[in-house]
Each structure stands twice: as C-alpha cells, then as structure tokens.
C-alpha cells in the first residue's frame, strides 16, 4: 500500500476486518425478555449492539463474543452459546 502525505487514511476503514470470526461463544438475545433498555449497547467494546424496534440486535460480523453484554443485561435476556460453524 502506498502512503499519502501525512499517512492519512479514511475514517471507519477498520470495518473491512470482520472480527466476528474471533468469536468462540455467541451472544443470543431472547427477544421476549429484552426490554430495550440499551445497557448492553453502552458496554459493548466492539460497537456491535444496536437497539432496533425496542430490542437488542447484535451484529455478528464484528461481535468478538466477549460476553460482557450477557453478564450486564439486567433482564438476563442474553445468553452465550458455543459457536458452531
């Protein structure tokens, strides 16, 4: 790759790294239990959770499976399951 003057790169280009393939456990949201409070979105290190239609939605392209969301969900709505590919 050729460097520009000042070695400038474009914003957000890390998205080419699909870090979801680092995962050995997968967080699965039980939509009946999730009340959309959004606490999990604040604590995800990988910007991989969004609240859509009042429910937690996980982006498996980037989620590394750390398990913080499952541990911190006050409703117990997220469970870690072994990743099978």
């Amino acid at each position: 790759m050729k460097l520009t003057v000042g070695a400038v790169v474009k914003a957000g280009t890390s998205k080419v790294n699909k870090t979801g393939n680092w995962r050995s456990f997968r967080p699965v949201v039980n939509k009946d239990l999730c009340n959309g409070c959004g606490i999990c979105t604040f604590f995800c290190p990988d910007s991989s959770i969004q609240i859509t239609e009042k429910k937690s939605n996980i982006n498996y392209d980037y989620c590394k499976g750390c398990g913080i969301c499952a541990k911190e969900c006050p409703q117990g709505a997220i469970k870690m399951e072994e990743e099978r590919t």
Partner: protein
Amino acid sequence: MVENMELLAPGHRACPGCGTAIATRLILKATGKDVIVVTSTGCLETFTSPYGQSAWEVPWIHSLFENGAAVASGVKEALKAKGNNHTKVVVISGDGGSFDIGFGAISGMFERGHDITYICYDNEAYMNTGVQRSSSTPYAATTTTTPAGVASYGKLEPKKDMPSIALAHGIQYVATASICYPQDLIRKVKKAISINGPKYIQVHVPCCIGWGFDPSETIEVGRLAVETGLVPIYSIEKGKPMEVRKVSDRKPVEAYLKKQNRFKHLFKGEEYKEVVAQLQKICDDNFEYFGLAK
C-alpha cells in the same frame, strides 16, 4: 440523540472485552463529531489504526508516546490560526503516556492554559508492550517489571495521585470516572469540553489481559474497584466544592483483589496479610477523605 452516535467503528483489533474500547466509544458519544482527537502510542492507538486503516469516525492524530499534550497544543494553535473557535481538542491517552513519559508535556499544556480536554484511559500499566508497571499501577500488583515471587510481593510503591497533581496547576476542571458508570462519564466529558481552558479526566478502564480476568467480567471488576473505595469517583470544577460519587454497597478490598491474577499471589498463605491490610487502608482512607459512604 448524541448517545446513539457511533464514532468508533467496529473492526478494530482490541482484545475481546477491552475496557479501553468501551471508554473511547463513550467519550466520543459525549464529544460528538466536531472534535480532533490526539492519542499517544499505546493500546488505543495500536488497535484503532492497523496499517492503512482507521476505526475513528472523527479526525484523529497519533502523536508519539511522550508528547500527546504538546501535539494537542499545536492542533489547538492551528485551529486558532484558521479562525476556528468551535472544534474541540481532546487527548485520549494511556496511563504510561500520561503519568510517566508524557507528564512534562501535560504540565506544560496546563501551565500555558490551552483549551484542551486531556483524558487519560487508566488501565494501570503499559499494556501495549506487555504489562510493564507505570506510576499508575496500584500497590502490590504484579507486572512483568514488578514480578511477585520469593523476593517481592509485586509493585512496592502506591499509585501516583495524578488528579491532585493536575489540580495543583490550578486548571478549570478535574474529574475521575469509570466505564462502569457510562452516564456519569458522558456527563463529565460534556462538562469538560464546555469549559474554556485545560481540563483533566482520568477514566478507570479494566484490562482483562493485563489484570488477568475473564473478558466478560470487565464491568464487574471495574465496579468492584469503585465499590471497595480503591478508585474514588469525583469531580472538581474550579472554585466549586468537590462532587463525589457515593458508594451505597461497600465491599472489602479482597472482593476486588481476588477477581484478578495480578493480585492472586497475595492470597497464597498468610505471608501477605499485611500487604492486603495496607490495600484495605488505602480504601479506608479514601472513604474518609472523599466522604464516599452514602
């Protein structure tokens, strides 16, 4: 709503469960897009900027390890020269880059009165290079340069009190925060950037790799640091009384120490009872000094 804005892109290469990545996401929610961020060499710089890529959705510059505050001062001066008086300049750098090697540059920036918010993400060691001690590493923690073993119980010195040193410069705003209380952290960053002049915020960020705990426990461990009183959360705006985050469910220091490999040598036999008592005393003194009890 600003809080929904996502200004740290995924695909960065932080370890799973990284507290530093959580801190950065939260800080950027508070700054919004009209900001230039400076980061010294360290984990945050490394994992957000793999060669030819960037996880930043705001303008960002990597300084050297030692000169984050000096580079930020230059950025501020350049903005001034261009007649830009709205873009905020924010440093987000590690404890090594802040407490140790970048210390002189920070002191200079404070003394010159530059309008910069300096945020130290405090994971309490040099993590990017393999867990060497910094002057922020807590008393008795084992690191690769303060190894616990037959001759030592880990780091012999207490953590340096950076917020007090920042305050001694007479700057506008000094605060401590933790990623475990996101609204508090976001509020403090918003407050800091709204004030003209130098500001210092120190954010406690657990590091599962350097401290030795399961990645899922990042928030749990960080919360225990606060609930034991080892990490007091407070803010001081110049000329106003200190605001303290009270602890409602106080825990003994062991509850925090026993969760982490960096302290586990303290519980092999009776030999280090006194060291644990010393750590408890640091917590007790914090409860007393900051009035942490609810």
